[in-house]
């Protein structure tokens, strides 16, 4: 008993350490090469995306192929709020507006997650995968036709609010939140639902509640990641949130081992760096990627980073 509570306090300590480190490093970020800085921020955003998807795919055993849709909802919402509100306010208030925009994006994405989670209740495996893919595409098509967010031309001129501090601070928060959630007594329900839904429900665990919670929470953080992404790239286009983007995130989760937060984080780092490192082979990148998926599934479907996995631990 006492070990688990000190574990939790330990986790909180790590999160705060992570946030502080992020903010401190961020203050020196003007010294860094802009190109490399961009990649590091990409890593942070992908960590949030991978960890949030991991909650749905890994811990709860659902198969969501539409995560990019939630990212899109969050990104566009946050961007629109920034674009509309920030010209009206003094620069000093900008961080506050950014936070508000991010949270608003996350909440709207969570709503979308609810919308996706509920129909998914009756579906399993392949069907679920296709429905989530469908939702991702529907979101993309809607955005592509909304003049208010630039439609197919995209939304440009988004102010550059994302910094190292924000990104890794929020990444720390996401990791903490997801792992604490899953490691809590309540959170055991996620893993129970993933293992055997019928057995879980006969134990009194409501799979409906867990599945929907997983989707809503996962979507919320994906939305936050989307907001960070929008204020980093300063340009959003609906084609950037298509099926391939969702697959990108899914591969990170698979590579890291479904349900292993640490593994997923490392996978996110590697899979963000890899295309940049291999840029001279960029024409082979997707070929290598797809081969990687096939080989992984055949040789090590539990992921690359699953050493000493305690059953059920995150």
């Amino acid at each position, binding site marked *: 008993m006492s070990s688990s509570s000190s574990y939790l306090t330990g986790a909180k300590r790590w999160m705060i350490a992570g946030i502080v480190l992020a903010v401190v490093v961020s203050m020196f970020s003007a010294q860094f090469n802009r190109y490399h800085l961009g990649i590091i921020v990409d890593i942070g955003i992908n960590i949030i995306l991978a960890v949030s998807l991991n909650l749905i795919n890994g811990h709860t055993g659902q198969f969501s192929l539409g995560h990019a849709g939630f990212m899109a909802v969050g990104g566009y919402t946050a961007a629109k709020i920034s674009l509309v509100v920030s010209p009206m306010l003094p620069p000093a208030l900008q961080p506050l507006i950014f936070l508000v925009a991010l949270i608003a994006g996350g909440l709207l994405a969570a709503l979308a997650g609810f919308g996706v989670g509920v129909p998914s209740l009756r579906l399993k495996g392949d069907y679920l995968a296709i429905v989530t893919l469908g939702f991702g595409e529907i979101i993309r098509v*809607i955005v592509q036709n909304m003049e208010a967010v630039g439609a197919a031309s995209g939304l440009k001129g988004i102010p550059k609010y994302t910094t190292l501090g924000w990104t890794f601070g929020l990444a720390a928060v996401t990791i903490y939140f997801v792992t604490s959630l899953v490691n809590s007594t309540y959170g055991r329900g996620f893993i129970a639902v993933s293992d055997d839904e019928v057995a879980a429900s006969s134990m009194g665990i409501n799979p409906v509640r867990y599945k929907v919670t997983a989707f809503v929470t996962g979507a919320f953080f994906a939305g936050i990641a989307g907001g960070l992404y929008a204020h980093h790239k300063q340009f959003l286009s609906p084609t950037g949130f298509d099926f391939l983007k969702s697959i990108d995130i899914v591969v990170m989760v698979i590579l890291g081992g479904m349900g292993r937060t640490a593994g997923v984080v490392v996978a996110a780092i590697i899979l963000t760096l890899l295309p940049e490192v291999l840029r001279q082979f960029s024409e082979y990148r997707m070929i290598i990627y*797809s081969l990687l998926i096939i080989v992984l599934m055949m040789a090590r479907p539990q992921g690359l980073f699953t050493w000493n996995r305690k059953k059920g631990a995150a």
Partner: protein
Amino acid sequence: MDWLLQQLINGLALGSIYALIALGYTMVYGVLRFINFAHADVLMLGAYAAYFLAPAVNSVIPLPSLTGAVIVTLISVMICTGIGILIEFLAYRPLRKRPRLTVLITAIGVSLFIEFTCQHSAVFGADTKPFPQLLPEHDYHFGGLVVSSNDLVVVVTTLLLLAGLWFIVQRTKMGTAMRAVSHNQQAAALMGININRIISFTFGLGSALAAIAGILYAMKAPGIDPLMGVQPGLRAFIAAVLGGIGNLPGAALGGLILGLLETFAGGISGLSNYRDGIAFAILILILLFKPAGLLGKATVEKV
């Protein structure tokens, strides 16, 4: 009235192609219980096979002509059947005992692998290539209606293939074995059926259909590119689920319905941009109210 009839014809032609592709999805699902994402890419490979074969065949039998078209199609079908069986052997057979999700992700990997390899300039290149004319084309005018010979060929071919497929599945030994394997793999094995052979056969059959669908599709829209299978594949997949996945007549029905819906929606101003989304919305609605599809049977999960 003319407009309506014309859209009907358009929709039937489009729906027939979707039906052909959907049959492949549904057969593989029936036998192996997973969605072969790479199916759509076999469609593309069929079209490219025809593209490369056409000049060679042309030097022997001048194209466009019926004989030439049939020869090109037959050879392309053989190539794609071989490819389909190869994919099953290399990528899916080793995973036979694994969870379905693993295989699904592998299928996605195979699909992406084929698409991106073909996009590489050393293979096919990402640009759109002009598809050669295989069949002589006529447009038949009935009053205000225009029926192009291509559309007729598509519909007739689909009907013939459907009939042939029905015959194989219902009246031949192979077909009975296929049905047995899709009901219960273990029991079928106990009855002396060679599961591997049946599965290979199913894949081969599905790939053959996909290749023909690919050629028909390329005849309709003679610009081929390595990603040409993605959209029709997605629609055909939705059609298969719509009709009840694992159910052959359901797949054909689903294909036709989707083709018609898409055509009618596409002709309405303001709705046409949402075509992609509409197809998926239909899918989600159907799955919500009839999770097993229109003609499918709901299976009870045994605990």
